[in-house]
């Protein structure tokens, strides 16, 4: 029943799909991570001005399906003079959508650092800048790795939706193979396996990063800060 020859004959389509899925996901996730960081930073820096708009943005990302966002960008964009190719719409869609989730992950990580740490550090005469870079950010990094890994995995899986706006990604090319060969199981299972592989790699990477951050010994902080750059 399982005919591996079909996959061999369609290897070029599968590899093309894999490549498109990988680069679009990579750029989309990169955009999501950085835009999310920007949003979280704005919100934490000035909650009075940016708190409400960022909170609204987060709610939008949570409440609207990615497919709608992709359709808005790809089909709705031209009405306001924004013409994007399907792949670019995919990258932008994944980026905008993921940013809302990442903003919330960063903020959650930052908020869960005990206030006492900051107060104690300030009491000891450590400058606000060093409190941020040496006390708050390292602790936050450890906290946000697991949920971020999770979110990256969700974004890779959701990236299959770009096939609907005609990007030749893994899902689209698998469907093309199905339509050409009339074999359903082989292409879809092969592609499912490839997605699973990408996801497994991200999960492993996240886990390794988490362990590294957990094992890292804190470097001593001098209150005056003049030896900070000595032992990099």
């Amino acid at each position, binding site marked *: 029943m399982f005919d591996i020859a079909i996959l061999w004959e369609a290897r070029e389509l599968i590899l093309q799909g894999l490549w498109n899925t990988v680069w679009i996901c990579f750029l989309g996730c990169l955009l999501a991570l950085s835009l999310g960081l920007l949003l979280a930073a704005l919100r934490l820096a000035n909650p009075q001005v940016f708190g409400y708009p960022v909170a609204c943005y987060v709610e939008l990302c*949570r409440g609207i*399906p990615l*497919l709608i966002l992709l359709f808005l960008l790809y089909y709705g964009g031209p009405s306001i003079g924004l013409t994007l190719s399907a792949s670019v719409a995919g990258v932008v869609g994944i980026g905008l959508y993921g940013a809302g989730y990442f903003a919330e992950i960063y903020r959650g990580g930052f908020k869960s650092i005990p206030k006492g740490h900051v107060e104690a550090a300030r009491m000891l005469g450590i400058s606000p800048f060093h409190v941020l870079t040496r006390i708050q950010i390292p602790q936050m990094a450890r906290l946000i790795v697991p949920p971020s890994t999770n979110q990256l995995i969700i974004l890779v899986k959701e990236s299959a939706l770009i096939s609907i706006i005609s990007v030749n990604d893994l899902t689209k090319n698998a469907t093309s193979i199905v339509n050409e060969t009339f074999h359903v199981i082989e292409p879809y299972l092969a592609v499912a396996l490839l997605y699973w592989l990408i996801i497994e790699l991200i999960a492993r990477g996240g886990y390794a990063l988490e362990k590294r951050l957990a094992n890292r010994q804190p470097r001593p902080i001098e209150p005056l800060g003049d030896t900070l750059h000595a032992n990099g």
Partner: protein
Amino acid sequence: MFEILLNHYPALAEGLIITLVVSLSAIALGLVLGVLLAFGLMSRHRLLAWPCGLYRSFWRGTPILLQLLLVYYLLPEVGIELAPISAAILTLTLNTAAFQSEIFRSGISHIPAGQIEAARMAGISAWQTRKRIIMPQVFRLTLPPLTNEIITILKNSSLISVIAVTELMRVSEQIASRTFQPLETYLAAALLYLAVNLVLARLSAYLERRMVGGLATE
């Protein structure tokens, strides 16, 4: 955007109802399957735990769009003819069952073992212990992640439009192609999805506040 909402509200409302029916039936069916699967995952018998783990890995580790296409095209191959809407409910159910099983597994593992031991000591059967002692507490513990899952399924139900189920997304596509106003139409659809999800989130927050009492403590 509001013009579209006003002019096409019967079609949009119909689509929204299909979206709700499909999502909520998948959630309800997935809940039953998810609870059973959670107990399967936690079973001491390898022969039961292992296939449950494999099931969870597959349905959590692949894109839901791929799962939908696989179910939709595969069923006729093995001689089962299903209407698109049934295939859609089936896929969403099988998918959410895997995610819900993980939510319940985590919830069940938070119930203090002493309670279960005490119940068994008092002569309450294993099945009654699950039904009367474990599950009522688990539902309270898992309400927030469960709400997230409901919202996720509602959002994911938009992609069943690809197998021609005329839910909200599909209806919007039809309106967009008729009116040549894709931006306004999809914004209107986005507004409807957002409204439903916000109501759900508020409802869950309200329930959570009400259910705080009577929780298991260590």
